[in-house]
């Protein structure tokens, strides 16, 4: 609420005020994409298994996208997150398979290594004053190459490391990072006939994939940090104008390093989740994910120049991207046209959500 009423302000409705928040702009795109697929796609897409199906990749991408959004708000890029997914996956796989460590050790070690690499990225960016684009690009190659070399060493020449599922079987930490949550609830719902069953009698949706919970939790946490803590203020300030922030006493260097560590850790988290989930890792994991993470952030309204954006925007951006990529398989369009559709839908969704926001806020 404005603290003073002023004759130079026109009244605006609650809805207008709501839509003005950058966090909510991306909803327009989600609505549009949903309508599109409601019309064109097989109805299976919007059944419970269908929704879980497209939310899973959205969640994995979203974890990266939200971290990338925070870093972008802070004025930097991290092109190495895709490679970091492969690298952290390789490290994690080696720790649990070759070294036989329990998750309680392997996960913190993987995270710590990722954070260290992130900090190194940040340190080089700050120390040399080079754009983060080029520094993290170098790490894109280095980490990708290191994953390949590492895998070959630890598997005696293969580029694929297998047997993770067996190695973590029964570990008490595994349910936090793999599989489905609320399995009991879903079995009960299947018994009640609320969700369909497979022939084997198992419910068609065994539960909420754990990454969806991580995704929602991370989006909420990131939003809270950005909007309601001093750190959030520092992130916006750092990205908005580094000099002005520094001159006003914001610890710019600490903020940047922390953000690089955050994106690296987000990549490591995605690596751990997908490696446990698929039971294997290979040298091409996370390929191009850095790119998709940035797309997600931009769909969600982040400016490439920094200082503006939101985590909830990236959340919806990831959902849009997930819906479009998976959704096309529910339609009968020829796969050859896939990329044309993907591009067209992305453009439409973004134009639409932008147009809504402009109309509502009266910007020109």
């Amino acid at each position, binding site marked *: 609420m404005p603290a003073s009423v002023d004759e130079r302000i026109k009244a605006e409705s609650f809805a207008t005020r709501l839509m003005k928040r950058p966090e909510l702009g991306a909803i327009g795109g989600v609505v549009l994409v949903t309508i599109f697929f409601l019309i064109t796609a*097989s109805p*299976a*897409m919007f*059944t419970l*298994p*269908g929704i879980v*199906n*497209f939310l*899973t*990749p959205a969640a*994995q991408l979203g974890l990266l996208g939200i971290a990338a959004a925070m870093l972008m708000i802070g004025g930097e890029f991290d092109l190495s997150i895709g490679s970091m997914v*492969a690298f952290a996956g390789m490290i994690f796989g080696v720790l649990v398979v070759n070294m036989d460590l329990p998750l309680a050790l392997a996960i913190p070690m993987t995270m710590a290594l990722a954070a260290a690499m992130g900090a190194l990225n940040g340190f080089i960016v700050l120390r040399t004053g080079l754009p983060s684009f080029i520094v993290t690009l170098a790490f894109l190659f280095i980490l*990708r190459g290191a*994953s*390949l070399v590492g895998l070959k060493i630890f598997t005696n*020449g*293969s*580029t*694929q490391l*297998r*047997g*993770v*599922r067996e190695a973590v079987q029964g570990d008490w930490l595994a349910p936090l990072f793999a599989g489905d949550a609320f399995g009991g609830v879903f079995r009960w719902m299947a018994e009640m006939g609320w969700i369909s069953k*497979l*022939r*084997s009698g*198992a419910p*068609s949706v065994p539960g909420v994939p754990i990454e969806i919970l991580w995704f929602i939790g991370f989006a909420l946490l990131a939003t809270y940090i950005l909007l309601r803590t001093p750190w959030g203020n520092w992130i916006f300030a750092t990205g908005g104008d580094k000099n002005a922030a520094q001159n006003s006493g914001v610890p710019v260097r600490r903020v940047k390093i922390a953000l690089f560590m955050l994106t690296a850790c987000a990549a490591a988290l995605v690596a751990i989740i*997908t490696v446990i*989930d*698929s*039971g*294997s890792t*290979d*040298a*091409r*994991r996370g*390929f*191009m994910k850095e790119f998709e993470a940035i797309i997600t952030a931009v769909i969600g309204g982040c400016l490439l120049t920094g200082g503006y954006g939101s985590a909830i925007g990236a959340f919806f951006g990831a959902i849009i991207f997930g819906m479009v*990529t*998976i959704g096309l*398989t*529910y339609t*009968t369009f*020829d*796969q*050859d046209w*896939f990329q044309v559709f993907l591009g067209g839908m992305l453009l439409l969704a973004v134009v639409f959500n932008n147009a809504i926001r402009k109309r509502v806020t009266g910007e020109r």
Partner: protein
Amino acid sequence: QNIVVVAHGQAADPFWSVVKNGAAKAGEDTGATVDFRSPETFDMVQMAQLIDAAVNQQPDGLVVSIPDADALGPSIQRAVDAGIPVISMNSGGDVAHDLGVILHVGQSEFDAGKRAGERLAEMGGKKGICVNHEVGNVSLDQRCAGFAEGFGNPVNVIPTQMDPAEVQSKVRAALEADESIDTVLTLGAAMVGEPAVDAVEALGATDTIRVASFDLSAGFLQDVADGKAAFAIDQQQYLQGYLPVSFLALNANYGLMPAGDVPSGPNLVETDAAAKVIDLSAQGIR
């Protein structure tokens, strides 16, 4: 009927576009609708999700390639549990039956690489390079590994991007840097094989350096026919698209299904055979 094909290679990949053409032709011939799906890059996590999406639509049949049984296994298992008949193709012959897949149409990448290696060694090769345009793509890595084993002599892997100019320069660089190399194996005919032949030609060493390639392309076959390249390794991937779809269509209509796996390759296309397949290759059938 409705049959879904989920493959690990993209529709734009020359190799996979032939598979897709085969599947589409089978659909035409049997009257089934065929949806061909693949992830944007070699991405096992996304491929598993695409299989899940296919299962949700309860198709009458599912065709998958299985380059990573660990990652795709649970999703394929779900399809089997949901009562969908599944046929695997291209890769995964070794694990297919454990997952409940009915049969497999294809060739082991490793074995194909080994055959190529043996043949090239027979032709007198002493030192080779394997040009890999997508390092980390497990099926390509296996081709190189098989080659190294069958060849029995030293083999270096040269990683490249998917850019003909770069491939040509790199092959040339590798040959200039080590003059004892006399054998070049590439893993894709159009993207890598043709530039490799150009590189050898530019060095004026067509007669001393043998080039062979996986898969077919009209241009590369022409080179084979002209004697500039040794042979192309054909796994008749058109069959990998055509057969599973028609088997599944027959299965849906009449409950018919062959009893055993179908090996679609390897099949080495050498000089005399090359000329005949050029036209078919230009139409995306070979």
